[in-house]
């Protein structure tokens, strides 16, 4: 059955690695709904967190084909309940709203959001959470004059991982070849 999965991929730091990974989804007609990547605690090793709507059966094969790539360390597919994850959203609101419309402060407090910056024209609110909470918050802010909204992809940590940090540290001992 098609549902949302999180795919995590550990890679070397190479030009084009994103392309190499995404091609494998493209071939099977799987749309990537979000993708984030950043360096891990080990310099030169990157982690991709990719969300997709697909089936477990397809993704197990995709992950195998990703792992086959030379510059990939490991790739995994995770069910929703196997990862702890967060997404981050920013909301830009007209500063006028602070004076005219209801109680913004209460709204921010109740939703565990926070104000990042305030200028004469606008202020920016940050909120982390899951997709649904973040989009629900848009509706709550709309009466105040939402100017812009943006959301990150996912960052995720695996519940069942035991010693991935140790594993990466071992990698670090072997120098990345050219």
């Amino acid at each position, binding site marked *: 059955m098609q549902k949302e999965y999180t795919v995590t991929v550990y890679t070397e730091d190479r030009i084009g690695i994103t*392309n190499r990974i995404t*091609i494998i989804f493209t071939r099977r007609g799987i749309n990537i709904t979000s993708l984030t990547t950043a360096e891990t605690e080990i310099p030169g090793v990157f982690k991709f967190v990719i969300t997709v709507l697909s089936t477990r059966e397809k993704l197990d094969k995709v992950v*195998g*084909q990703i792992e086959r790539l030379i*510059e*990939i360390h490991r790739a995994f597919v995770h069910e929703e309940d196997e990862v702890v994850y967060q997404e981050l959203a920013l909301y830009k609101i007209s500063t006028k709203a602070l004076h005219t419309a209801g109680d913004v402060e209460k709204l921010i407090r109740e939703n565990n959001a926070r104000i990042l910056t305030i200028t004469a024209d606008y202020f920016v609110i940050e909120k982390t959470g899951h997709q649904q909470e973040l989009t629900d918050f848009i509706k709550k802010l709309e009466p105040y004059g939402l100017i812009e909204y943006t959301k990150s992809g996912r960052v995720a940590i695996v519940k069942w991982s035991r010693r991935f940090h140790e594993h990466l540290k071992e*990698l670090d001992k*072997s120098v*990345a070849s*050219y």
Partner: protein
Amino acid sequence: MQQKDVLPMKPETEADKRSAVKPVITGSEAVIRSLIAEGVETIFGYPGGAIMPIYDALYDFQDQVHHILVRHEQGATHAAQGYSRASGKVGVAFATSGPGATNLVTGLADAYMDSTPMVCITGQVAATLLGTDAFQETDVIGITMPITKWNIQVTRQEDIPGAIAKAFYIARSGRPGPVLVDITKNAQVGTFEFEYNKCEFIRSYQPVPELDNEAVTAAAALINSAKKPYIFCGHGVLLSGAENELLSLAEKAQIPIASTLLGLSAVPVDHPLYGGLLGMHGNYAPNMLTCECDLVIAVGMRFDDRVTGDVTTFVKQAKVIHIEIDAAEINKIIPADIAILADAKEALSALSQLVMPAKHDAWLEEFRFGHKKEYDKVQHRELYPESGEIKMAETVRLISEKTNGEAILVTDVGQHQMIASRYYRFKNPNTNITSGGMGTMGFSIPAAMGAKMGAPEKEVIAVVGDGCFQMTLQELGTIYQSQIGCKMVILNNNFLGMVRQWQQLFFDKRYSSTEMVNPDFIQIAKGFFIPGKKVTAREDLAAAIDEMLAHKGAYLLEVVVEKEDNVFPMVPAGAPVSTIRLE
């Protein structure tokens, strides 16, 4: 010609290393010296603007590296593939940027599908021009990403030796494949202190998985309790050099073997346990008995759809042991009850030790029975016709007999390929060279010339259709210029025969664009100074084959064969294997 000394590649001690003077050379010379350090003796290629500095460097090394000037870059890739498959070495091809590079695409994709180790080196515009739509600039890295095992663009001369070392290591290790190294012009002309170290390790790449002894033990238990065990022999057996290990396992427990198209020649056709060819146009018994066996031992094969037909019914009644070096192939098509992720040779030799001697006479009898049925219904009339036009099969039978099954057979794609694969009686490993996964028409002529370069002591015979021949016939120019003694047999039915067969069977005989009005092939060969002969009558066929084989050097034999011949048996595409048709 200026001669250059071979460099000391690996200084003996640390002290030597420190004191060794590293020569300052250009990136282009570094390319050639790196190739020499990897043992490269033959390169197939075609020069052009962005690779000219490398060709200039090559000029000084003509005594060490033999460059074959092809007539089209696609020919260079197929020649490199043929060379590799015949010699076991990594094939090497050169091309310039832009169109030179894009012409490599078909050969790269073919080598990727058929796990052939190949390193392609392309010239590229200067680094400062990258991304500007410069003359003959193309994003060959982006284009070839999905069809190479690995590729890299090198923009600094000092990165050349490392990139080439890694390219060769990746191409030949694990499941082999093609690699492309794209080198910008500035890196080719810039100078640096050259030093070459072979690559033996990449931390994110494990080419040969560690053998899991528990899996081997479990597999042996399955084999020991099987009543109708059945080995599928794939290309991986040849790539790993596991032919003897496979036979010892099969002989010990009396297990019949069937081969995939690319696994052909791993097991001698006349071996008593050899059951024949799997797949759409394979043999009757080995296909039918996939529905009867209780255990499949699949070695170095990937359950291609041409082998499985309908996957929902394929080997459903049997347990499956899958021995495979590439983890991504496990459970990709057919779920494995036991997966042995390993090199085939290592896995088979471990497995042999745990397998008990056994007899499966009744089971083997089923293969013989099926073979007799196919022989009576199909093979006899194909191999020994007494009237009518010449048959493809009888031509292949004669070639097989006259070469004693010992030639390297290079086939193209289509009916003639299936017929040649069905009827040539292979004796020795690595003597079957064909385009399997990609089914690339035009493969055989350049591949045969590469194979002859890779195994000059062997008779190399390309069997090619009239359609395929016209896709790469310009390589006759290469064969003439470089005096490559491969033999070519055109089985000419004036049709794109396999497509015509499908039109006949599945498209109500609507022969849409499959009939060919052909040129005079013998005149064409003559234009390239290659002798040849055209045969239209059965009584002339044997003598013509003798004449071809007796000729020293390249030779073209055109055999005009039955126009509307069909290849049987046949499993209709996507249908269960049990629906195999004998007529």
